[in-house]
């Protein structure tokens, strides 16, 4: 796909070196993921032999039926769902406040919300771990959710705030002017205009939570989310074929919604939110 015709004036063509370098970088990014798919079908159970001696489909049902994997998957899904809901609420409220009002310290809010994602994961992890330790809170489902919600808020916040800024601010005034109270305005005007941004933010928050491993290591105690289970399998491989298949499933579960989120934000920027 790199050899496609480009709309550049003559003399502005990319050199072969540049094209090769770009292609190499792209392959470097993607070939490892393809290999995961390949290995899900290998007959080799005890090593990572390449090329695979032969291919089989038998691991897929086995992996799906594996109780440890199922348990980890369920925990991850529950944590991600709840963390996403909290991120949606907190992120949207924050974005609305920053967009509609001027207040002291407004500029700092964005910076503040992105900190848990920008600082190395162990900082957030060990910080929450210290608090758990100091206040002697027992590890639980909730300690994982709290950690995940904290770093997921910013994805919703950023998406919704960007959408607010792109849509015309007078729309809310126009709606109230036409007789709608604040709640009616929110329902009929604000929500339809930010819905795709909310969805995109939620998807990102979900996948962020779904495959988080660093913070979770410090907040999970003995419980295993799916990434932690995979991490454990990598440290002490017991069941390679099942791990391979699980890895493939995780790629699918996270990558497909991301594609959707990309589409949602890209498409809405063409049509919606006209700003005279």
């Amino acid at each position, binding site marked *: 796909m790199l050899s496609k015709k480009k709309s550049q004036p003559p003399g502005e063509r990319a050199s072969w*070196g540049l094209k090769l*370098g770009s292609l190499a970088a792209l392959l470097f990014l993607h070939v490892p993921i393809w290999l995961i798919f390949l290995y899900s079908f290998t007959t080799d159970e005890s090593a990572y032999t390449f090329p695979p001696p032969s291919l089989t489909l038998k691991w897929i049902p086995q992996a799906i039926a594996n109780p440890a994997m199922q348990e980890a998957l369920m925990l991850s899904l529950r944590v991600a769902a709840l963390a996403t809901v909290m991120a949606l609420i907190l992120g949207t409220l*924050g974005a609305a406040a920053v967009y509609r009002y001027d207040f002291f310290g407004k500029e700092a809010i964005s910076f503040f919300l992105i900190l848990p994602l920008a600082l190395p994961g162990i900082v957030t992890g060990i910080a929450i771990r210290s608090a758990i330790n100091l206040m002697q809170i027992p590890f639980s489902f909730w300690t994982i959710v709290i950690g995940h919600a904290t770093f997921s808020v910013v994805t919703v916040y950023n998406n919704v705030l960007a959408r607010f800024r792109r849509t015309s601010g007078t729309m809310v005034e126009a709606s109230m002017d036409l007789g709608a109270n604040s*709640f009616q305005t929110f329902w009929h005007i604000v929500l339809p205009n930010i819905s795709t941004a909310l969805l995109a933010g939620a998807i990102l928050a979900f996948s962020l939570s779904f495959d988080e*491993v660093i913070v979770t290591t410090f907040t999970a105690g003995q419980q295993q989310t799916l990434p932690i289970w995979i991490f454990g399998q990598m440290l002490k491989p017991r069941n390679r074929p099942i791990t391979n298949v699980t890895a493939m499933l995780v790629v699918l579960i996270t990558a497909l919604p991301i594609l959707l989120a990309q589409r949602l934000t890209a498409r809405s920027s063409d049509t919606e939110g006209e700003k005279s």
Partner: protein
Amino acid sequence: MLNRISTFLYRRPKLVLALLLLPPLLWFVVVYLGALLTMLINSFFYLDGFTGKVVPEFTLRTYAKLFETTNLQIFGRTTLMAALVTLACVAIAFPLSYYIARFASPRLKTWLYLAVTIPLWSSYVVRVYSWKLILAQEGIVSWFARLVRLDGVLGWYLGLPAVGGPSLSVSATGVFLVFVYIWLPYMIIPIQTALERVPKSLIEASGDLGANSAQTFRNVILPLAFPGVVAGSIFTFSLTLGDFIVPSLFGNSSFYIGKAVLAYQGTSGNIPLAAAFTMGPIVIMVVYLLIARKLGAFDAL
């Protein structure tokens, strides 16, 4: 009823602001800042070596431990690794970012952008896992080396001190490769953003003034892309400093900051030392961010 609530709120914009801002603010102050604060507090406690219990008394002796030789080596090793990873990411990311920003047609650009963001967002653990497959002794790299009859070179390389090891998947080189792979998208996107902000007219003007394309690249494009490079390096540097997964899976016995923190808080239950250790990357990152701001990196984010 709703009308009356709405009117009540309409007359009190400050109350509405408080209602909107309070939940997220409260959450972040209590949960996040609170946690950071307890971390700070913990770092001033110490672990009693005999009882194995944390003693909640103010002391600097935990911080003093950071300056023992082994721990200083850990900081040095991790920072060096982060720096090397950052440089490698710049070298690999730049051509692709440059191609996307300047030569790709709008359609192709959308696809390439997706091709970069999907790895960025898709599962971190699984992407790490894929390198377990690649670097294994029986994996694709060894297979390829045999295929092109370079297995002797690979064997010689693995025999080198510091960079080698029993196999690529247990070596500093392995750690380095996986880090570069994992953080590469974080470098591509800011560089591309910065390059896209270079106006075409500027490049044309440079050509107009008699510069050949190499000169234009060196004198016009590179300086303007630099903030993007710095912005990307914030990610690659910070993320490498704090990671423990990759060194645990691919490293030999030598510690990195993240791995040390994990070990202290986990196996030995020494949360004070783990907390004090974490101050290391925070300090390094704050210094780094201050330099980055001087270099104008925040405009490219």
